[in-house]
C-alpha cells in the first residue's frame, strides 16, 4: 500500500517537474525548430504538436534557407563582427583598468582610500541607465558620439568588476607578496608577476560577465551611434524585426544566431559563471 502510493507520488512529481521544465524550454525549442521551416509550414504547424518538432519532411540542407535569406537581407555578419569587436575591446581595456584599481584598493595604504571605496560601492548600486541622459550629453559634448571610445567609456571602469577583483585580491595571502619583496621585486612587478598569475579564475569570471554585458547591450549603442553599419547585433535584431516584410522564420533564425555565442560561453565556462553568481548575484 505504502509502496504503491510512493510510486504514484513519484509519477505525479516527475510529471509536474517535466511540465515545469517544458514551460521554460518550449519557447527556445519553438524558436530553433521554426527557424528551419519555410514561412508557410511555420504558420501551418502553429496549432499542432508539429510546432515543437523540426521540419522532418524537408531535407536538412534546406533547413538553413531562412538563415541564408536573412543573412542576404541584413548584414548580420557585420553586426556580429561589431558585437565581437566591441566586446573584446571592452574586455581588453576594462580588465586591465579595473584589476589595477582593485589591487591598489586592496593592498595599498594611501590617503582617501576609504572615500574611493565608498564611491565605488555607491555607484555599484545606482544603475547606469538612471543617468543615461546626462551621460549622453557629456559624451556628446566631448565629441565622442559615433566613436568606439564613446561606446566603451561608460563601461570601462565598471564598479562590479573593481569590487569582484578587490574581494579576490584581499584573499591572496600577504606571505606570497612578502616573499617576492624579499626576492627584490617592487609592487609593480609583484602585481604582474605574482598576483596576476594567481588570479586567473577571477579574470575569467569578470571576462565572461563583461563579455555578456557587452554582447547584450542595447540602449547605449542605440543612443550614441547614428549609423546602422556600426550597430551591434542586438540593435540590428530589432531593426530586422521592424523592417517590412517581416518573415517570422527569418526573425527566429537571427534570434538563434544571436544566442549561440552566449550559449557556448555558458556551456564552456559555467564553473566561472557560477563563481561570479555566488560572489555578486549581479548580472
Amino acid at each position, binding site marked *: 500500500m505504502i509502496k504503491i502510493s510512493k510510486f504514484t507520488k513519484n509519477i505525479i512529481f*516527475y510529471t509536474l*517537474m517535466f511540465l*515545469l*521544465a517544458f*514551460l*521554460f524550454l518550449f*519557447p*527556445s525549442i519553438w*524558436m530553433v525548430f521554426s527557424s528551419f521551416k519555410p514561412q508557410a509550414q511555420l*504558420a501551418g504547424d*502553429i*496549432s499542432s504538436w508539429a*510546432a515543437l518538432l523540426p521540419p522532418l519532411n524537408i531535407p536538412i540542407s534546406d533547413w538553413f534557407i531562412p538563415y541564408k535569406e536573412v543573412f542576404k537581407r541584413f548584414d548580420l555578419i557585420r553586426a556580429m563582427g561589431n558585437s565581437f569587436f566591441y566586446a573584446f575591446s571592452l574586455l581588453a581595456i576594462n580588465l*586591465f*583598468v*579595473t584589476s*589595477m*584599481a582593485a589591487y*591598489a584598493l586592496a593592498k*595599498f*595604504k*594611501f*590617503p582617501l582610500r576609504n572615500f574611493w571605496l565608498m*564611491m565605488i560601492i555607491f*555607484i555599484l*548600486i*545606482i*544603475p547606469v541607465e*538612471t*543617468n*543615461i*541622459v*546626462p551621460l549622453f*550629453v*557629456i559624451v556628446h*559634448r*566631448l565629441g565622442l558620439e559615433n566613436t568606439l571610445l564613446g561606446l566603451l*567609456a*561608460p563601461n*570601462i*571602469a565598471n564598479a562590479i568588476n573593481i569590487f569582484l577583483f578587490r574581494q579576490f585580491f584581499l584573499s591572496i595571502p600577504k606571505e606570497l607578496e612578502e616573499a617576492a619583496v624579499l626576492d627584490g621585486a617592487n*609592487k609593480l612587478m609583484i602585481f604582474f608577476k605574482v598576483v596576476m598569475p594567481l588570479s586567473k579564475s577571477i579574470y575569467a569570471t569578470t571576462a565572461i560577465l563583461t563579455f555578456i554585458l557587452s554582447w*547584450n547591450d*542595447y*540602449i547605449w549603442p542605440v543612443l550614441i551611434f547614428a549609423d546602422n553599419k556600426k550597430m551591434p547585433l542586438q540593435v540590428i*535584431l*530589432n531593426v530586422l*524585426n521592424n523592417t517590412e516584410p517581416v518573415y*517570422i522564420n527569418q526573425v*527566429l533564425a537571427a*534570434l538563434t544566431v*544571436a*544566442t549561440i555565442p552566449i550559449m557556448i560561453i*555558458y556551456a564552456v565556462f559555467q564553473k566561472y559563471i*557560477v563563481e561570479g*553568481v*555566488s560572489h555578486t*548575484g*549581479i*548580472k
Partner: protein
Amino acid sequence: MEMKKLFGKYKLKETLLAYAFLAPALIFMLIFIVAPIIASLSFSFTDYYLLKPNEIDFIGLENFKYILEDNLVWLSFLNTFKFIIMVIPLQVGTALGLALLINKKIKFNLFFKVSFFSPVVMSLVVMSILWMVLLNPQSGLINAVLTSLGFEKQPFLTSTTQALPTIVVASAWQGAGYQMMIFLAGLKNIPEMLYEAAGIDGANKWKQFLYITLPSLRNVTVFVMITTLIGAFKLIIQPMVMTSGGPKNSTLTIVYYIFQTGVRYRNVGYASAITLIFTLIVTVFVMMQRRFLKEED
C-alpha cells in the same frame, strides 16, 4: 626616511604608486559615472535643450513644477511600481521554488537545472522579440494553444490591461533561472547537521523548511529581492522592443520616459529633473537594503 612619510602614516612612494594604479579607473569613473549624476543635478534647474547648448537659462524650480502637472511622469512611475510589485514575488518566488525542487536529490537533476536556466542565455532583446512573436494575437503560438484548449484568444501586448502583466511574466521567465542559481548556492551553505538534529527532534519536512531553510536563506532572499528591485526600476528594453511603451502608454516606464524626453525630444533639462527624482528614490531603496543587510550582521 622623513621624506617618505608624507601624509603622516602614508608612505609617499606607496601613495604615488597607488594613484598610478587607480588613475585610469578613476578618470573614467569620474567623467562617465559621477559627472552625469552631478550634471543631472545642475541641468535639472535649467531649460537645457540639446540642440541649443549655448542658450541655457536657469529656470529655478520650473521643471519640478512641470513634473507635478505632467500626467506621463505619474503614469510612468505608476507603471514602474506596478511592474515592481508584480515581478518581485513572481520572479523571486519562482526562483526560490525551483531551487528548492532541484536541491533535493532527484533524478534528471541536471536536465531540470539546465531547462530552468536556459532562458538566461537569451539577451533581453532576443527574449522580447521571441515573446512578441509567441504572443502575436493572430498568428502566435500561445493563442493557438489557448484556442486548441478551448479558451478565447487573448490580445496580450496589444491590450492596455494585459500588456504590462505580460511583460512581467516574460521578464520573470527570463530571469528566474539566474536567481535560482543564487538560491542554490545559499541552500548548499546550510549545514546538513541542522536537518539531522531537527529530524531527531521529530520535526517533519514542513517544519524543517519553515524553521531551518527559510531563516537560513533570509540574507540571500533579501539580496535577490533588492537586485530584482533595482533591475525592475530600470525596466526599459522590454517595453521599448515589445510595445514601444503602448498601448496608450500602459507600458511606459520611468527610465523609458526619461529616455524619450531627453533623447528623442532633446529636452535635457526636464529629463534631468525627472532623473534627479528617480535617482533619489532608487537611493532611498538602496539605503534600505544596506540597513536590512546590516541588521542581519
